[in-house]
């Protein structure tokens, strides 16, 4: 009788061990599968873009402006410069305001009604469709000025960057341990100084990631530019004039009935993605040395 019980306990133990092994393998496989699914779209898009667009890339693409319909060749030099211009304006507006707002939410306004209102507004702003952002910039800048401009496009993109940067900055600052703040205050460092030199510095890798995410997101936006930057088939570096942008150019070319323009649109898409990857890598590289060394 006793022996029988012992055997059944043994059996159950073996059964459970096998079951545990199975569950472990299943969970690991699911995780690996999910990871592959995350990477797959990006890799697929990238490969497809290279297949479709790489053969249209040549020196002319980077040095010439679009040619009239019917003429072969031409490039997107003006759109590349235009996109860079728009993104610089957007970053100059979005990064300081976003980081400043995040610092306020996490460090100075914590728990106040005003801060809760700002946080709520930022979250709503994050969900506003990008075309509506374009309309806002249209009403604020284009209508009073009576003309489309690079400035209006940059502002539209900049406003779109603010909520993402603001909220990630707040989250990252809140992750800095309380002990680190206390250490600074305990040394007789004024609060504002402690926030800027200790807390923000400690959180800077995360804050930079937030800025990069916002940047990469607006870099590919088309809708907010349609009635702000408008697009331009000619050279323009004036902030007060309509300016070309890669996403806009791709949009127009992809919808056109001309094969030549389709090829340029593919090439433009490839260049846009490569530019975003380059910009993100460059910021990572610069911030991993120099002033912010040690922050990551």
């Amino acid at each position, binding site marked *: 009788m006793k022996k029988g019980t012992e055997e059944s306990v043994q059996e159950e133990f073996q059964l459970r061990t096998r079951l545990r092994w199975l569950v472990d393998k299943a969970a690991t496989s699911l995780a690996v599968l999910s990871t592959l699914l995350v990477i797959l779209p990006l890799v697929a898009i990238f490969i497809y873009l290279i297949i479709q667009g790489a053969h249209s890339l040549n020196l002319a693409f980077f040095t010439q402006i679009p040619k009239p319909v019917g003429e072969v060749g031409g490039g997107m030099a003006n759109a590349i410069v235009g996109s860079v211009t728009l993104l610089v304006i957007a970053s100059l507006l979005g990064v300081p305001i976003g980081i400043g707002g995040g610092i306020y939410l996490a460090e100075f306004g914590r728990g106040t009604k005003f801060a809760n209102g700002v946080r709520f507004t930022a979250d709503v702003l994050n969900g506003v469709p990008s075309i509506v952002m374009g309309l806002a910039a249209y009403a604020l800048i284009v209508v009073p000025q009576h003309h489309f401009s690079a400035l209006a496009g940059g502002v539209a993109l900049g406003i779109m960057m603010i909520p993402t940067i603001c909220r990630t900055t707040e989250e990252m600052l809140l992750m800095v341990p309380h002990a680190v703040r206390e*250490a600074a205050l*305990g*040394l*007789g*460092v004024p609060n504002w100084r402690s926030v800027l*030199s*200790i807390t923000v*510095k400690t959180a800077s890798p995360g804050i930079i990631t937030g800025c990069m995410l916002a940047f990469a997101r607006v870099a590919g936006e088309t809708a907010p530019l349609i009635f702000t930057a408008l697009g331009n088939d000619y050279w323009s570096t004036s902030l007060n004039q309509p300016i070309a942008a890669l996403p806009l150019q791709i949009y127009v070319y992809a919808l056109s009935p001309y094969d030549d323009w389709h090829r340029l649109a593919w090439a433009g898409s490839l260049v846009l993605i490569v530019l975003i990857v380059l910009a993100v890598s460059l910021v990572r590289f610069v911030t991993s040395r120099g002033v912010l060394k*040690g922050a990551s």
Partner: protein
Amino acid sequence: MGVGIEVANLNAWYGTNHTLQDITLNIPANHATALIGPSGCGKSTFVRCLNRMHETNPIARVTGTVRMGDLDIYQGATPVEVRRRVGMVFQRPNPFPTMSIYDNVAAGLKLNGYSNRKSLDEVVEKSLKNSALWDEVKDELKKKSGASLSGGQQQRLCIARALAVDPEVLLMDEPASALDPVSTSKIEDLIFQLKSQYTIVIVTHNMQQAARVAEKTGFFLNGRMVEFDSTHKIFTNPSDKRTEDYITGRFG
């Protein structure tokens, strides 16, 4: 040189919780004073009132007077001024994670706008020597991050950081409770050396530690100070029954 601290009718609250009730005592200059008592008795709150860290919590409140030499720290000074004269070492080592060893020690001066490189070098060296860490780190001052040191080294780094701003008082809130016995004895040796130059207040759960390092000991219970006397008297012949019960391990 250290200064004495006179505390009179000190009360402190967290929200509606009256955590310190009518504390009155005189902490002597250039000696080590230990505060003992069970968890939650208010001893940490008490030292945090001495450098006005208590009020950094938005729901906290303090009444009463604390005099440090000629200075009334709640009437005659801002929190920032007080904290420059009163250094603090926390329970868990908390070096600035993004800074090198050198920058950690120099942080207090640098963040207050002090930038003379040569004298910063001198202060850093002196502070690290005073905290008995110099020999272990002198070759990697600017290369190694403060967070890469061992727990005991980190705590001595935090002591050096506190000493670098040249305070008159050093508050230590259970400075050795997260450390192994070897590191603990190093910290205790340090307290022994430092008390000739600074007034030291140390909160501890370890009664042997209090007996080893402090001339004076205060026993806290439920937000009140039960007894304050020479360490020898507290541990051999306490006047209050509750002190005796705590010391002999009957509760707490």
